[in-house]
């Protein structure tokens, strides 16, 4: 029984390390993504302002350029939010599988977690954590 417990605990630590890193990356992205609605509101205000200015005037053109820049920022922000949301989805899915670990059909492994990813960013982070964990364990291996 004890020999079964040790490998499972090691794998659990590995999974927690991967999920922790994924969540940290998610937080970082979310921190920069709350501006979406404000950007859209500012772009709308600028569009309203441009409509009040004489058509073809330099101020109207400047307001339109600013509005365009804000729309581009909002588009970039929306894509960052999308990435963050999808990462949150996979973490939630992985955690729910871990919560149901008593069922052999529901167990989670790093390899299965890899199958949940939807972007190269996620796969690269996973691989980096595996490499770090492998490097960290290396000195503890018997005979190494």
């Amino acid at each position, binding site marked *: 029984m004890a020999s079964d417990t040790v490998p499972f605990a090691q794998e659990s630590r590995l999974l927690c390390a991967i999920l922790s890193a994924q969540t940290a990356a998610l937080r970082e992205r979310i921190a920069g993504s709350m501006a*979406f609605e404000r950007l*859209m509101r500012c*772009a709308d205000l600028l569009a309203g302002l441009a409509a009040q200015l004489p058509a073809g005037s330099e101020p109207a053109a400047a307001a339109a350029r600013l509005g*365009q820049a804000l*729309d*581009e920022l*909002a*588009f*970039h*922000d*929306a*894509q*960052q*939010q*999308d*990435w963050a*949301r*999808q990462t949150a989805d996979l973490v939630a899915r992985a955690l729910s599988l871990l919560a149901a670990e008593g069922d052999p059909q529901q167990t989670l492994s790093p390899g299965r977690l890899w199958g949940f990813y*939807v*972007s*190269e*960013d996620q796969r690269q982070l996973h691989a980096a954590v595996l490499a770090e964990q492998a490097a960290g364990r290396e000195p503890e291996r018997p005979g190494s």
Partner: protein
Amino acid sequence: MATVLVLDDSSTMVMSLARILKKAGYEVATATRGQEGLAQLNAGLKPTAIITDLNMPEMDGIMFIKAVRRIPACRFTPIIVLTTESGLGKSAEARAAGATGWLTKPTEPEQLISTLKQFAPA
């Protein structure tokens, strides 16, 4: 005026895409679920092009593309996938299902419009 159907389960993405496309001169129809998009097509919407996400609940982008290709009026409608996924396998799967183009998020508005114009001038 050319109409683009935008499908993404992120309402933020849908709002932002619609805004970018309208400014580029397109009419825009939107959906946040594959079934919702299919319902619009089956109800007679004839978009000049479709932009769809890949990773969505219930009906993913691959299933959606296959379903679109089964609608006679949409057999040849350009379908551009806009997704966080950049794996070659997924891209090949989408193309086999009937996707016409592929863009990986994050992308720039200019890139999106440029790709769209290859298939559907505004």
